[in-house]
């Protein structure tokens, strides 16, 4: 993204508390810090996470937790909520088994460092680089994310997470946030539309959150992010994903 204008328009139209961006240079956000501040937001430094940057509402109090190359962890004390934003390794350069191993390790890190899905409010959002239905996302030796509200809460010793992203398949068009037709030897060979960008939540979050809503941002006041006539993503290579909730 070369211009900051689409980002500003999302902020002014949707007024999020938090906005996570992938594949964006820190310098780009620092250069536009004054513009962000003018509209009530700021770039929030998260040293250590290379692949995800944070813009937040200026008045939102945020604590940094574990930072890695692939994900950033923040904590909102006011509502006792951990939020992780991810940009996980790509399917283009990693075999399915590698991604499965990565997702299992990621899940173990969350369980150990943040806490149990049953006892902690956790929300994870971002580019998982994998679809909700793929093995590394749903299997016990992967992330273990279910699409069911009333799923078994435990598979052996591991507790499930809930994946509301499945609800987005009710769109009658462009079933994904990313279009990729090029054969790669993995699921891209058959399916061309992918919900690589997802939200998953812990069971405690799912039980306690109210008025939850997952959606894709197709347009803002000034910009179109999805051209329905051409069935094409605009401004970026992914469609922005939004998740609203309250406690």
């Amino acid at each position: 993204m070369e211009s900051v204008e689409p980002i500003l328009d999302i902020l002014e139209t949707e007024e999020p508390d938090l906005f996570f961006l992938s594949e964006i240079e820190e310098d780009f956000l620092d250069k536009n810090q004054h513009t962000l501040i003018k509209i009530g937001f700021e770039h929030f430094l998260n040293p250590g996470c290379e692949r995800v940057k944070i813009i937040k509402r200026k008045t939102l109090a945020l604590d940094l937790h574990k930072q890695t190359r692939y994900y950033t962890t923040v904590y909102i004390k006011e509502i006792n909520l951990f939020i992780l934003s991810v940009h996980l390794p790509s399917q283009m350069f990693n075999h399915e088994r590698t991604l499965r191993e990565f997702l299992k390790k990621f899940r173990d890190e969350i369980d150990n460092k943040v806490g149990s899905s049953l006892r902690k409010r956790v929300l994870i959002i971002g580019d998982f680089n994998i679809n909700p239905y793929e093995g590394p996302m749903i299997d016990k030796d992967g992330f273990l994310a279910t699409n069911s509200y009333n799923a078994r809460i435990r598979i052996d010793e591991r507790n499930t997470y809930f994946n509301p992203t499945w609800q987005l398949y009710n769109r009658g068009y462009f079933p994904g946030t990313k279009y990729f037709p090029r054969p790669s030897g993995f699921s891209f060979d058959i399916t061309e539309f992918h919900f690589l960008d997802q939200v998953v939540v812990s069971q405690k979050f799912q039980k306690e959150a109210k008025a939850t809503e997952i959606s894709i941002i197709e347009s803002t006041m000034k910009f179109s992010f999805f051209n329905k006539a051409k069935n094409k993503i605009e401004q970026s290579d992914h469609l922005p994903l939004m998740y609203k909730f309250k406690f």
Partner: protein
Amino acid sequence: MNWGEIKESKAEYPEVIVESTFEGFSTATQGLANLYITELEDTLRLTSGLKRDFQFAVYLGSDHLTSYSFQVFSFGYNIQLRPVLLRVESLIFEEIEGHPIVFGDNKIELSDDNDLKAYLERIYATQRFLNVVGGVMKLARKKKDEDTHLY
């Protein structure tokens, strides 16, 4: 059977060697950042990729950002105490190696204590490590100034 006399190993614990490299870091960062070791337990041992009897991780943190952490590297060794296997944060490792790596390939095994210290110095000298430390210092100073004004 005549056992004779079996001598105790004179090798230093690797975690003691690693911890010795932290000396001066807090001063160099004006007290805004620190390095610390924790022993890996439970499932973190299984997913560390080290597969060694004794496993540890080195984190970057700050007294002013109490919940912040960034894992710089992990290391492990078996009962013989040597060699030591290091698993280094992937971007730091890529900078030292000079090329991108296959996921999970960010490991190096060292048998000699001088080689271990030398490699740790290379980790601390990378731009990746210094950039993260710089970012932590910036945030920690802001927090420190805010807390000072409160009191």
